[in-house]
């Protein structure tokens, strides 16, 4: 026993706290960047710190935030999902069709989410059980389901949405906080805690770390992969529900290009494109950060065409900072 005790002392942690690692954690870095950006924005524009603007920013990014949670799950498990934007639109159109058919609100929402389950199962089955490449597979389903959206909607915006449904997304039942913000915060906290602490959700990190090791550890790798894509698609479908409720209509070109915007944000938030690394909180902060940057541009009357330049630069800077921090470490 003495042997083990002396050795334990030499382990040097004894429940200690690694401050250096916390300081270099992506969540904190992005958090600080958000603060700096917010301060800069306040100085640059008198309109930044107004309730109306903050509300706009927060509500505007809520859909991307929901989609980002699901993408984090898939990226962490070592996959990628390009079909999320199409799923948002598919879910939105399915809901609008359900309302056209005179169905009630809960059934319409369920129909939208079911569309997500279908896409998730198709993606997951092809990737996990057939063994296709995730990038190619979801590129394919992205195209297919975007087409499906146009076919289903006939290419027209569908706007026969009941007012009570719109009220769900635009109301503020809790302390005057917009419902959407409450929903997003609850989802982020829930998923962050689950990925961090829950035995089942933690398996995604194992899978992303090493598929072979996960297999040897007795994890049902194929089923877990499939479930990752299902979770991602269902969250994207929930994003579609929110889109319809917020805008009161379903446009067939909803969320076009959203997958790349969200992937950018999630990587800025510290997710590794190779899997195994990333948190839901980080991803959410990444979305918030990019939303703030875009908001500054808008407030200062910079053309929206510059937003891509800004996002791209932030992405490259984020990856660059990662390379600098990890320089000299064993790969």
């Amino acid at each position, binding site marked *: 026993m003495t042997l083990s005790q002396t050795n*334990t002392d030499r382990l040097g*942690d004894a429940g200690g706290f690694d401050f250096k690692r916390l300081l270099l954690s992506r969540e904190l870095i992005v958090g600080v960047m958000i603060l700096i950006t917010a301060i800069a924005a306040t100085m640059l524009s008198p309109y930044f710190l107004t309730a109306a603007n903050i509300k706009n920013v927060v509500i505007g990014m809520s859909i991307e935030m929901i989609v980002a949670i699901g993408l984090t799950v898939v990226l962490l498990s070592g996959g990628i999902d390009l079909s999320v934007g199409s799923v948002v639109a598919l879910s939105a159109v399915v809901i609008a069709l359900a309302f056209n058919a005179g169905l009630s609100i809960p059934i319409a929402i369920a129909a939208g989410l079911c569309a997500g389950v279908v896409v998730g199962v198709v993606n997951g089955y092809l990737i996990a059980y057939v063994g296709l490449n995730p990038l190619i597979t979801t590129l394919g389903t992205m195209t297919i389901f975007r087409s499906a959206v146009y076919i289903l909607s006939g290419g027209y915006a569908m706007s026969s949405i009941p007012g009570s449904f719109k009220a769900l997304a635009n109301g503020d039942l809790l302390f005057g906080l917009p419902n959407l913000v409450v929903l997003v915060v609850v989802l982020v906290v829930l998923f962050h805690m689950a990925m961090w602490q829950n035995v089942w959700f933690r398996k995604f990190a194992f899978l992303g770390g090493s598929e072979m090791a996960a297999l040897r550890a007795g994890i049902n790798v194929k089923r877990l992969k499939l479930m990752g894509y299902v979770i991602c698609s269902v969250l994207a479908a929930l994003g579609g529900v929110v889109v319809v409720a917020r805008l009161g209509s379903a446009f067939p070109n909803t969320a076009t290009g959203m997958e790349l915007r969200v992937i950018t944000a999630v990587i800025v938030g510290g997710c590794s494109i190779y899997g*195994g690394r990333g948190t839901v909180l980080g991803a959410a902060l990444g979305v918030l950060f990019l939303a703030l940057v875009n908001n500054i541009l808008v407030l200062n009357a910079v053309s929206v065409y510059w937003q891509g330049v800004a996002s791209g630069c932030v992405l490259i800077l984020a990856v660059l900072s990662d390379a600098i921090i990890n320089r000299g470490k064993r790969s």
Partner: protein
Amino acid sequence: MTAPNKVVEMTGIEKRFGPVEVLRGVDFELYENEVLALLGDNGAGKSTLIKTLSGYYQPDAGQIRIGGQAVSFGTPHEARDHGIETIYQDLALFDNLDVAANVFAGKEKVGGGWRKMLGFVDRKAMRNEAREAVSQMAINIPRIDQEVSAFSGGQRQCVAIAKSVMWGRKVVIMDEPTAALGVRETGKVLDLIRTLKSHNLSVIVIMHNIEHVMEVAERAIVMRSGSRRGTVNLNGPQDRESHDEIVKMLM
């Protein structure tokens, strides 16, 4: 030594892949608490023999006994359930996770009370148990909460082995544990193998380097073209006689 118990006994193991006869009636035994080296050229059948024991292959003929009891393994999991753990060269670690997560992979501890309802893991307990397991090894691990990607080859080996000690395995099979390591690290891993004995484990090491074999193993089985060429009892690194005997058998 008064007739030590056989942990593993394999008799008349035969295995063929198509027309190729890889194992031609091999007998193999592993005693309790011993470090056994398995030697032989490429294609001598050591890997096939080991994979038969760890459940990856099913023998065409012959019998496997674990602790005197006849068994047959359909899958690696069944072998593991009988206490046989194989540590491959790639070690099958999760580079993105810390030592505790690696040791508990797939069998994470769930906390009590409200955490049980939410399926939340008990990090502290896992960390403490992992620290306990790792601290009894001959290699120091800098931090128990550090990702194993930052570790050296020897330290990674240590984490992989701590896993099998923790889960109460009886037999650990190591496939070329020193193959990719430098001199210093190799020394540490050899120390590590010796400490496994103090945990009542029996170890089978596949190694090419005879010097390393002499340093850790008590017995060596030499294989040649699918059959057992012979056995040599080893008495430490200075035992020239045994060394020469092994070399002769390998030639």
